[in-house]
């Protein structure tokens, strides 16, 4: 049986991967190279204007990518060749649909030949970068500051004091509780599935609908100040402005609950959205948080035009998994207690 599945899967995944790779547009090479000189690639392309004169970023986009945030330790260069990037994408697409070994913890998952294949089945820009981080030049997060190290230790101790991961619903990660995911951020980073965003522009506002978890980021463009420092929100307070072709969004007023990559609530985030081609948007962000890192760092992701509409990700409504996980943990505790009682009681 398993042998048959293996043949079936390898027979499925390889042609699919090859089919899409042969038609994949180059959204990386020249544009990514151009991006190094801060926007020179945008010179060749001028985005159309909305009726009120803003560069038009509207529509559906995906930030799906196989490029890791940090450069792998065995890679020293900044860019792959197109051939290398295609080969990595092809191999990773096949791996995503590979069978796992029955009876191993890694095998407990839904059907990877059917679900979670957005990057191999849907739109994706081919990014030639070896890491999304562009600064520092080594493509890796800067070292933690002394304060950042202390806070990381404090947070780990606080987590431990709250008990096991399934002892209470509050101990479950934010994504399992349908509160916030890395697709949302901010900053907004892709994952294995549901990486679509819809941008809508109206006079004075930009709205970014994040597919997962169906959150609308509404960014005022009228120059109003940020919220008062005592007002803290999961996704912070975002204010936007145009810098030529580029939409610049600055976010502060975060909480320490999301803690992007271990950040503090005083992280200051600057996102830059530039449409560099009809079907490509360059998303750059800079993180400034001296309470966490020894210096600021920046990353860059290419967003590819995607098709819509977005099917509502009504996460809470369908989140049976959270109940099942907690119910499973209680059932295990009960079994363990019964076994312990059996051992104690004389025969």
């Amino acid at each position, binding site marked *: 049986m398993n042998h048959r599945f293996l043949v079936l899967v390898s027979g499925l995944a390889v042609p699919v991967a090859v089919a899409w790779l042969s038609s*994949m547009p180059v959204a990386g090479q020249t544009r990514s190279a151009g991006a190094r000189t801060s926007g020179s690639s945008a010179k060749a392309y001028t985005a159309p204007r909305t009726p009120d004169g803003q560069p038009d970023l509207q529509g559906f986009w995906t930030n799906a990518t196989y490029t890791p945030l940090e450069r792998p330790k065995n890679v020293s260069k900044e860019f792959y060749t197109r051939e290398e990037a295609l080969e990595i994408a092809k191999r990773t697409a096949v791996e995503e649909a590979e069978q796992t070994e029955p009876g191993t*913890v*890694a*095998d407990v998952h839904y059907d990877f030949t059917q679900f979670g*294949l957005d990057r191999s089945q849907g739109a994706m820009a081919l990014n030639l970068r070896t890491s999304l981080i562009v600064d520092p030049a080594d493509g890796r997060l800067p070292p933690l500051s002394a304060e950042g190290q202390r806070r990381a230790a404090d947070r780990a101790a606080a987590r431990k004091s709250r008990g096991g991961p399934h002892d209470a619903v509050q101990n479950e990660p934010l994504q*399992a509780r349908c509160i916030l995911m890395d697709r949302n951020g901010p900053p907004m980073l892709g994952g294995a599935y549901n990486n679509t965003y819809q941008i809508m522009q109206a006079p004075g506002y930009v709205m970014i609908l994040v597919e997962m978890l169906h959150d609308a980021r509404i960014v005022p463009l009228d120059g109003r100040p940020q919220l008062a420092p005592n007002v803290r929100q999961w996704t912070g307070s975002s204010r936007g402005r145009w810098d030529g072709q580029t939409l610049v969004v600055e976010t502060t007023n975060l909480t320490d609950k999301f803690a992007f990559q271990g950040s503090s609530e005083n992280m200051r985030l600057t996102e830059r959205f530039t449409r560099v081609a009809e079907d490509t948007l360059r998303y750059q962000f800079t993180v400034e948080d001296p309470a966490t890192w020894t210096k600021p760092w920046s990353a860059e992701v290419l967003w590819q*035009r995607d098709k819509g509409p977005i099917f509502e990700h009504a996460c809470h409504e369908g989140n049976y998994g959270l109940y099942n996980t907690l*119910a499973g943990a209680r059932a295990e505790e009960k079994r363990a207690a019964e076994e312990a009682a059996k051992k104690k009681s004389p025969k």
Partner: protein
Amino acid sequence: MRMRRAVVGVGAVLLLAAAPVMAHHAFSAEFDINKPFKLRGTLTKWEMINPHSWFHVDVKDESGTVVEWMIEGGSPNQLIKQGVTKHTLVIGTELTIEGYQAKDGTNKGVGRNLVLANGQRLFLGGTAGPPDNKQGGK
């Protein structure tokens, strides 16, 4: 047999890096590695919902009694983009499902392999083909 193990083993190693990012929760916390199952049943309802879709399946047990199972699948969003609708999988379709049962011992499980009675996959290998190009349209 030995060869199968070897090939599957390579796949498992490669997936170690990819698997953790595929889900919004930890599968092994919800489902029991020690309770694998293989069911054959008919689809009674398909909940095309997020964060995970659920297949409701009627399964006959050894005594001939019909028992309802709920099987977890992935987020349906990408399937919908590829043209799969709630009508793609007809109620009454016979399915063979391999997976792992929920830790709380109820008739729920994760559908590790979802296969039609004729051996075909449900969607990507059947009704929904690969995309025309990687741009995804407008």
